[in-house]
C-alpha cells in the first residue's frame, strides 16, 4: 500500500500523520427534500471501485483539511489540495 501522501503545504508525508474523515459528500439536499433523500445523504455511502475523493486532516503536520483522490484498488493518492480551494471550485 502506498502510504505517502503529498501534502500541498508540507510535502511527502506518511499516512500516520493524517486523520481520514471520509468521502467528500455530495451537496446537501434542500431543507424540504423528502426523507429518503435525506436518509441517503446522511447514512448511505458508496463504496466505489477506483477513484474516490476524501477529506484528510493533516493532524501531525500543518493541521489543514485536505481533499485528495484515492484509488480504492491501488491506494494510490493523487490531486491533493487544500480543502479551502473547494469553496472557489464551486458547487462540488
Amino acid at each position: 500500500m502506498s502510504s505517502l501522501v503529498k501534502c500541498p503545504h508540507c510535502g511527502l508525508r506518511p499516512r500516520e500523520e493524517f486523520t481520514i474523515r471520509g468521502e467528500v459528500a455530495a451537496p446537501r439536499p434542500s431543507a424540504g427534500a423528502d426523507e429518503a433523500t435525506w436518509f441517503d445523504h446522511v447514512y448511505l455511502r458508496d463504496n466505489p471501485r477506483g477513484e474516490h475523493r476524501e477529506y484528510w486532516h493533516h493532524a501531525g503536520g500543518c493541521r489543514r483539511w485536505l481533499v485528495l483522490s484515492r484509488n480504492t484498488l491501488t491506494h494510490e493518492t493523487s490531486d491533493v489540495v487544500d480543502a479551502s480551494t473547494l469553496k472557489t471550485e464551486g458547487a462540488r
Partner: protein
Amino acid sequence: MHEYPLENRFAFPSNDAAGAGASINLAPIRDGFVFHVLGDANSNEVDLKQALVKIAPELGTDLRSPSPNQWFWVGGADVSDSRLAEIQAEIPEQFVLADQTHGRLRMVLFGASSRSVLAKGTMVDLSPEMFAIGQSTMTQIGHIGAMITRTADDSFELIVLRSFASTLWDELQHMAAEFRHP
C-alpha cells in the same frame, strides 16, 4: 513562576573521551521567547517580517511556519509582559500574536549523529538537499508533534508542546544511546 518541565532531566554527561567531536548532544533552550503569529488568508511572511523589523528590531525575525498563514516567531531575548503588549498593539491588523513561551519548549539536538537520531523518529527527509539550513517543518517524532528546524549541518532545533517535552526528551535519549560511545 512556572516550573520548567526539563528542570530535573538528565542531560548527556560530558563525554571527555569523545571531546568536541562527541557524536550527539541534546540541550534545552531555556531563554528567549516563542510567539505564535496567526495571519489572515491574505497575509504573507514578507509583510510580517517588515512589520516586525519596524516594531521590534531588537528581537530579530526568526520565523518558522508550521502551517499556511501561521508562524512561530522565536528569539533568544527575554520579553517582558509590557513589551509584549506593545508589540501586540502595534502589529498590523491582519496578524494576531499570542505568547507561547511557556506553552512550547525548545531544545537542540546536535552532533554528527543528530540526523540519524532524528531519522529514527520522523519520516521527513532530513538530507541537506531536501531540508536545508534554516528550513523548518511541522511533523511527528514518534507520536509527538514537533517542529524541526535545521540550524546547522548537524544541528536541529525542536519546538514541542510543554506537556510533551519531558517525554520527547526521554525518547531522544533512548534514540541517541547507541551514539553516545566515543
